[in-house]
């Protein structure tokens, strides 16, 4: 039995879940950003797998765009992290709760 589409999909699902767990459980904002990257890359895997097995290039193009946009997102994210660190001396998301209720 060969490595088929479903294996890649399972891989991407597992990766997505790992990223999700990190995003919801880690306390360091930078690490959360990384975990979100993992989720996005899980999507990329799914996209590329689809395009590879469906013989459509669209998926790969989509993957490239996802990478690019994700990079931009992370840039803004890091900038915000810096801003917060300067004003608060911490990037622990559990202590970033001035606003609630």
């Amino acid at each position, binding site marked *: 039995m060969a490595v088929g589409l479903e294996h890649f999909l399972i891989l991407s699902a597992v990766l997505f879940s790992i990223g999700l767990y990190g*995003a919801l459980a880690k306390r360091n904002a930078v690490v959360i950003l990384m975990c979100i990257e993992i*989720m996005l890359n899980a999507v990329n895997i799914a996209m590329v797998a*689809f395009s590879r097995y469906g013989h*459509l290039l669209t998926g790969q193009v989509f993957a490239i765009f996802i990478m690019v946009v994700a990079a931009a*997102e992370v840039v803004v994210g890091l900038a915000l992290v810096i*801003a917060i660190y300067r004003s608060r001396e911490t990037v622990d998301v559990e202590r970033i709760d001035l606003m609630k209720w």
Partner: protein
Amino acid sequence: MNLYLLAPEISLCGLAIVVILLDLVLKRKGILAVVSVAGLIVPGAFTLALWGREETTFAGMLAIDQFSLFFNLFFLVMAALVILSSVDYVSKFRAFQGEYYALVLLSAAGMMLMASTRELISIYVALELVAISLYALTGFLKDPKSSEAGMKYLLLGAVASAVLLYGMAMVFGLTGTTHLEEIAQAIPGGGLLANPALLLGIVLLVAGFGFKIATVPFQMWVPDVYEGAPTPITAYLSVASKAAGFAVILRVFYEALGAVSLDWGIIFAILAAITMTLGNVVAIAQTNIKRMLAYSTIAQAGYLMMGLAAVSALGSSALLFFLGAYALTNLGAFIAIIAISNKIDSDLIGDYSGMARRAPLLALALAFCLISLIGIPPTAGFMAKIYIFNAAVQYDLTWLVIIAVVNTAISAYYYLRVVKVMYLEAPPSEEAVPSSASLRAALSFCCLGVLLLGVYPWALLRITQAAVDIFFP
């Protein structure tokens, strides 16, 4: 490929770049606002020049039709109003004024694209263009609250877009295309349970877009972000980005997923009921007016979703009309709040006491907008509610309408409380509250619009009904 059809978006991005470059060379930053608002005339003119055309270009990725043109105009007006109302707010910044306006313009461009693209990749890119500019704007003040708001918005937004992408991947994998109309042809029949991939895809899409329009349970970010963000940006978030979310939902769900409309219709109906109830009930307990309006926008999103739930030309045109009415009303309320909080430097409802005597016109405008948010005639809010309730009743969602009517009764309580505080309580000081000319212009535009739509709704209804015709050939 016909670039002319893309002229509004291109010219808008060009304007943004020009503003940034001007910011580098100009000394007097005041000009930037003038340039931005005046520059908005160009894309506006292009939009009007394209009015009435029905074409697609870029291999069917970009559609120019009544729907996208309506939203082009909508977002341009919103951007102009927000910039006008930000002038004296932004003039307090020492640096980064150009960036502020440029980011507003860029996000407007993104919203226009969201409404006019018919292809998943470009939808995603446009959506992120909007989102990233708004993340930056939310954290713009760099004070603890603002940057916390930006942080929360960004991290949750990123998670939401990851979810959205996963949904898109599912749909793409299932149908082998990212073009909406091709997806519509490739959608397998036999309901959702027959093919779980489609179910997962649709649910993830609902979640991803639901984050943008702030429906329960994807609304948790709203209160914190709205409270922390600069007030003009809060206004912008509450109307424009929500409207963009609804625009893209209408596109995707009507053009691509019309085959399974029964299924997502019921999702939206249930979410609408929960959303409006939660928003209204929690809004009652708020003491910060920005936070209260945040919950009120959640409730309004609930009413808006009735238009999605009532899958029909009537429902969607009602939705567009409600969007227009709601945008003017909410923006008016926020502009009044900007002017007032610039002076009294507080967002607590208690500090608005006696505002009727300190700033009669501002208080009157705010009261008028709040009355429109309740939905009392002769305001736009009333017509919008009538129209959307009627659409829901026609679609046999009477239970939903009953819930909505009860919610309206609840909402009257907390909106009127602000009016009561402003009119029926003694002011701490008689000191008058000043407001700049541009802000007054924006505010009076909103109020007049609300009144006009309340008295003569046909002015807008005509356009919205033409706009949604594309979904019902």
